[in-house]
Each structure stands twice: as structure tokens, then as C-alpha cells.
């Protein structure tokens, strides 16, 4: 299964995602931001980082690059799309998921392990978890505070994917740190599943995000 990993100037953890995709048996390939045609790929992952230096707003400039049209085509063809950290901010800026990830409440960059609740298991990335399962994955961001004007809609449509369990480090609305589109195909999460996919790194709780893509269709 070919999975495209999108690279912008300033992307990071792209190689971590590549490594984990290989571990679960996928065939990852890097794709540069100016690629328009993504028809070769069966799933897309936008990794973390600081695309375009986070200028203007985190993800704002990546959100207007040509590859976004290719990603929209993938979505309309029913292919899963995952945005991690900066990838999540980009998907929110594009409007493929509702709301926004903005400056942390304490105005600090937070890098720590967090306990998370898997709220929705309707996405390809969370389908192998149990609903309300508690998992451990790290966060590393300065702009991760989730905000939406339509919280009730998110609840009604089962679009809340992940929330912080014991504490809410960045001040997110209802401790939300992962959301998806209505169908559940496009998933945006601030925590890093690729950094928690091998027990030697402290947790392999994130690995199912990648295993879930395999044989999805």
C-alpha cells in the first residue's frame, strides 16, 4: 500500500513517519509540496514541523500550496488523510477539519508525554482502538489549543477523535486534541503517534494509527 508523506519547507518527523509506515508494511514515499497529482497514493500523511516558519499563522501558508488541491481530490476519492501536529494545523487552516489550533493558553512550547482518550473510532486511524481507550503519546507544540464555534455539531457527528485525559496542558476547548471531518476520513491530531510506535521509545500506543490505514479500503 503506497502512502504519500507530504513535505513542506520546515516539515519534520517526516522520516519518523516513513520509518513507522515501513514497520507496519506500507510503502511510504515522500511527496514535495508543489506536486498536484496524488493519484498514485492510497493514503496521505502530513507530518509535523514548522512549515514556512509558521509565518502568519501555523499552517496558513502551507494551506494555499498546490498539493492541497491534490489532497482534496484524495478526500473526494475516499482516501484517508492524517495530519499530525503542524499537519493538523494545516488541515484546520484548509478547512478540511472544523475549528483551529491556536496559541497555547500559557504561551509556551509544550513538549511532554500525555494521556489521551480515544473518543471516536470511526476514522481509519483510530478504528483499531476501543472507544474511550486511554493511550499515551507525546505532544510538542506552541499552537495546539483547539477552538471551534460549533462544539455541539462536533459532538453530534462523532468528530472528536482525541482528548487529553488527566490534564489539559494547552487549554484546548473541552480538552480536545484531535478532530475529524464528518465522514471520518480526514483526521487532524496534535499528539505524535509516530513518536509512540515502538516500546523502546516509551510507548507503542500510537502504532495503531498506522496499522489502521492498512487494508482500510
Amino acid at each position, binding site marked *: 500500500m503506497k502512502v504519500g508523506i507530504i513535505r513542506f519547507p520546515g516539515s519534520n518527523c517526516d522520516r519518523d513517519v516513513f520509518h513507522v509506515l515501513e514497520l507496519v508494511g506500507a510503502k511510504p514515499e515522500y511527496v514535495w509540496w508543489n506536486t498536484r497529482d496524488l493519484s498514485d497514493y492510497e493514503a496521505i500523511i502530513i507530518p509535523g514541523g514548522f512549515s514556512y516558519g509558521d509565518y*502568519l*499563522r501555523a499552517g*496558513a*501558508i502551507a494551506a*494555499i500550496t498546490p498539493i492541497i488541491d491534490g489532497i482534496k481530490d484524495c478526500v473526494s476519492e475516499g482516501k484517508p488523510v492524517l495530519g499530525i501536529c503542524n499537519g493538523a494545523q494545516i488541515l484546520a*487552516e484548509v478547512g478540511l477539519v472544523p*475549528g*483551529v489550533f*491556536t*496559541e*497555547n*493558553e*500559557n*504561551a509556551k512550547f509544550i513538549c511532554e508525554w500525555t494521556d489521551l482518550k480515544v473518543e471516536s473510532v470511526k476514522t481509519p486511524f483510530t478504528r483499531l482502538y476501543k472507544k474511550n481507550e486511554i493511550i499515551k503519546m507525546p505532544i510538542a507544540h506552541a499552537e495546539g*489549543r483547539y*477552538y*471551534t*464555534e460549533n462544539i455541539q455539531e462536533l459532538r453530534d457527528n462523532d468528530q472528536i477523535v482525541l482528548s487529553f485525559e488527566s490534564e489539559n496542558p494547552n*487549554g484546548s476547548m473541552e480538552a480536545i486534541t484531535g478532530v475529524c471531518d464528518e465522514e471520518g476520513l480526514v483526521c487532524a491530531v496534535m499528539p505524535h503517534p509516530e513518536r509512540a510506535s515502538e516500546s523502546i521509545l516509551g510507548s507503542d500506543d500510537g502504532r495503531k494509527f498506522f496499522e489502521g490505514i492498512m487494508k482500510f479500503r
Partner: protein
Amino acid sequence: MKYDAEVRISLKKGMLNPEAATIQRALALLEYQVVNTSTVDLIRFQIQGDSESAVKEEVDEMCQRLLCNPVIHDYTIKISAQEE
């Protein structure tokens, strides 16, 4: 005709502003007691156009497509003709 354009971007009323809160706390460290601190982003550029209203319309489109995030931002646009 050449115009000066100025876009002021602020957070919507009631939105948390961690940058402003940090500035206010820092001012308090210097023993300046201030309240209601806020911050705005200011973007300035020059642009060619047929009329002030046409330019304003174009800049408004820029705000909606890139410069602002409608979920959290309000913005104002100021257009003024450059003196030749």
C-alpha cells in the same frame, strides 16, 4: 493608481490572547499596572488598482483567503491613495 493598504488583524472579542496576557504580566513585573492589554497584527503593502473601492475589495479577498482565519479573527482594512 497606486494605493497604500493596511490590514489590522485582531482576535475576536472574548478570544483568549496569551501573548497579550504575557505582556501584561511582564509590565506588572516592572510595576506598571495596566489592564485590558491586547495585540494586533499589522500588515502593510502597496498595490495598483483602478479605484479605492476596487482595491479594498481585492484586499478583503486576501484577508479571507490567507491573511486571516475567520474562526478567530476580526480585521479592518485601510486604503489610501499614494500621493504622486
